[in-house]
């Protein structure tokens, strides 16, 4: 990649990540939320992969870490639903943190929704980054003709 592209990417990856986090955190007030914000966060890391090569982004976020963050994100989502069962009037996904009338439309409103947005954003970001990395890592293996693969697991029966 040319010098212009690398420099601009280096400047932009911070604001993109910040914008993604903003979308996730304000998801209960403005459009966005877990899905959209998670995609933008993943895009920041994918930008690093495209511009500086795969080892740069895997240095930040290895495949094992993203895979674990993936599962942990959704487990936090389910755990928040479980807490609703135990703490207040007993049903799943009960929004047990009430919002006072004065605090509407501010950041700390909406009960458990911001926490669920964060968990979703974590899951979507790590899942998308993992999908992109695994698919492109496989492409690199294909170009090294005849060499045994070392950048991705080649177990019989491993799902890509």
């Amino acid at each position, binding site marked *: 990649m040319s010098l212009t592209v690398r420099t601009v990417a280096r400047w932009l990856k911070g604001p993109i990540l910040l914008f993604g986090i903003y979308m996730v955190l304000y998801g209960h007030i403005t459009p966005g939320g877990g899905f959209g914000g998670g995609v933008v966060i993943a895009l920041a890391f994918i930008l690093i992969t495209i511009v500086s090569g795969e080892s740069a982004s895997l240095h930040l976020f290895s495949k094992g870490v993203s895979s*674990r963050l993936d*599962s942990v994100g959704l*487990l936090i989502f389910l755990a928040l639903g479980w807490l609703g*069962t135990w703490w207040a009037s*007993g*049903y*799943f996904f009960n929004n047990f943190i009430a919002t006072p009338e004065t605090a509407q439309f501010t950041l700390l409103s909406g009960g458990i929704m911001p926490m669920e947005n964060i968990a979703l954003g974590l899951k979507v970001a790590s899942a998308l980054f993992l999908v992109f990395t695994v698919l492109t890592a496989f492409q690199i293996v294909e170009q090294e003709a005849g060499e045994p693969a070392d950048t991705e697991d080649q*177990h*019989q*029966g491993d799902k890509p």
Partner: protein
Amino acid sequence: MNIDVQTLIPMFVALPLGMSLLIQLVARRRHVLGELLAIIAMLLLTLMSCYAIGHKGIYHLGGWPTPIGIDMRLDDLAILLLLVINVVGLAVALYSVDYMRRFTASSHFYGLFLLMVTGMNGVVLAGDLFNLYVFLEVAAIASYSLVAFGCAHEELEASFKYIVLGSLSSALILIGVALVYGITGTLNMAHIASRIAQTGMDAPLLLAFGLFIAGFSFKSALVPFHAWLPDAHPSAPAPVSAMLSGVLIKAIGIYVLARLAFNVFGVTESELSLLRWLGLLSMVVGGFLAAGQKDIKRLFAYSSISQVGFMVLGLGLGSPLGIVGALYHLVNHSMFKSLLFLNAGAVEYATGTRDLNKLGGLNQKLPITGATSLIGSMSIAGVPPFSGFWSKLIIVLACIEGGFYGFGVAAVLVSIVTLAYQLKVQRMAFFASLPEALKGLRREPPMMALAMILLAAGCIALSFAVLTGLRDPWLIGAAQQVLTMGVFK
């Protein structure tokens, strides 16, 4: 111990989902932990399904009341299908402990398996159309990955064909959902039912219903839409084939067709005759194509198409006796088709081949497989004291009661063809003399034997179920009343 229905209903979806994630998190290297967690999850689900018999209820997600929020409904038809899904799932989970030892990524297998169970439980419990679509997609994506699990040549090709046709059918279903939402203004199935009862079925709703029938006929492999099944079910690993053929095509195919036709859209004569003709076509084409197969699992896959035709024929008759026959055949077929696929998997595990010409005399070497396979084959062929005979008899009697003599005769003929190819499998694989190449086989491993014995015991227990009175409001009778009353309580 009294669990409130409000807590019970979401647990059917949350428990396998949470266990699936937990397995993928902690059981990456420690395979035994993954197997243990999967079996515990399926045991808990089976116990919860048994507890749910007789309970009915509605769960509002997040407390939002019905017109605004998402519901999950537990009624008698849902209870019947939940029992079927979770009991067969338990047997398959036990079986796959030994079968999946050959694969190194078995934690991924259990994670995907529990995700598929999550999707199926969600489809059965869903109370509105879009939730149904989402859980349908969850189960379908898990099944696409499971079919391709071994990454051998045929598995990948079969999975590609399956995923292209599956995505097409899901797109058709989504267009149907869009049309129904545009016309009735709500997604909740009970509200749609009451709106349609008031305004009647005009042309756009007929188009939406046609799209739903096309989409869900793909999922349940009725005949013009069956092209993926004879490739996908044989190529998948044996426990996956048992789940797909035994439960998936029924939970996301037949169940949704019955729910939409009877409860949501209101049943008319033209819809019923469409279901009858689809059923007849599937029965005949599946039966005759099965008779000529040499591959044991491909034969069972075509046989699944044929038996699904029986069920849709029973549904299409519309009378209470026909629906009882269809539901009883659904439960029976889950039991014995899963058992037959697990047997075929045990045969392949021991001998390494699925070709009927190369097998023979396996009753001496694999006694438990042979005995349970005999029970399964006699059940599916409709030999008198076994369960398949009773369910097919009820469907034929319902045909004659409704005046459809041609359909009844066709059903009897297809039963004879079924008996013919099942006897062919039994003779060529189990009763003939043992060829030289197969002299040194070991017996089947203990967990696989346990799973097969469990399902065979289920088949025999179902044969006695007809003595309890199938029209009484317990299980099958109650499920039938949900459909014939046409009311979504």
